[in-house]
């Protein structure tokens, strides 16, 4: 399979975008911290973090390292978003039944 970025090399005109690989790398570096939580650390805190969000509290202020990990890690972010979706669905169902 050809590398996606080779396409840019072979067809540099008429309007190639700035290098997406470089943008992605620099984006990651700009968010890099000396100390970061691991995926396991974040998983342990994810339910608390999601409940803060659901209550409308400033979770990124209260748990900044979790927020930073979620900004960096696509897997954890996807799990967080799915968890939030489950909580919203669940709470909507409860409200309908009450």
């Amino acid at each position, binding site marked *: 399979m050809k590398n996606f*970025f080779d396409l840019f090399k072979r067809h540099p005109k008429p309007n190639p975008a700035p290098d997406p690989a470089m943008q992605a790398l620099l984006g990651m570096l700009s968010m890099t911290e000396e100390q970061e939580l691991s*995926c396991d650390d974040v998983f342990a805190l994810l339910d608390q973090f999601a409940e803060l969000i659901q209550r409308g509290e400033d979770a990124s202020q209260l748990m900044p390292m979790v927020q930073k990990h979620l900004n960096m890690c696509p897997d954890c972010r996807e799990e967080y978003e799915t968890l939030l979706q489950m909580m919203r669905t669940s709470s909507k169902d409860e409200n309908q039944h009450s």
Partner: protein
Amino acid sequence: MPERDNQTWIKNLQTRGADRDAALADLYATLLQVLPRALTRWLSTGDPALETLVEDVAQETLLRVLDKLDTFEGRSQFTTWVYKIAVRIALTELRRERWKDFSLDEMTENSDGAAGLDFVQDGEAGPESAAEQRDTLQHLQRILSEELTDKQRQALMAVGVQGMPLEEVAWRMGTNRNALYKLMHDARLRLKHRLEQEGLPIEELLVMFNR
């Protein structure tokens, strides 16, 4: 489902008997109800695969909940904790299915056929900035080859550029997601420090490449 507080959930689930059976049945029913709508970005509601997946995930979740019950610290609602476990199980399965035909080598091979990051100069840049970009790109390529291992370059390319899940990359590399995140964090830190040492502020590079 009868309302239970955290203590009641734990009490019901700790000991075999009718209370535990009822609690498990309630959790199972809740998962069957809540999971499908949370997974619509992966599978559409009419897809028979969704129903099978949800049932499998719900069963696996209950087993894991019973196994991990003593690790629940009561810092969230019990059901949120259960949902979190279900999400991990479901997305692990969905990622595996979605990425099963992708090879890590193919996803991360650069134009030289080697593993790593491959950069392209911006064809729209004017002559001066084009020359500056070319020099900077060469400089960055050298830093990348000097600072990172093949594995680190491959991981950054696969996850950061190609959008592969860490879990899938880790599996293909014979490691786990937690260790892969650490490997990538080490790589990012090395690059960040080296750029600082060389007087290349990331903010300025972002401006240069994000016109």
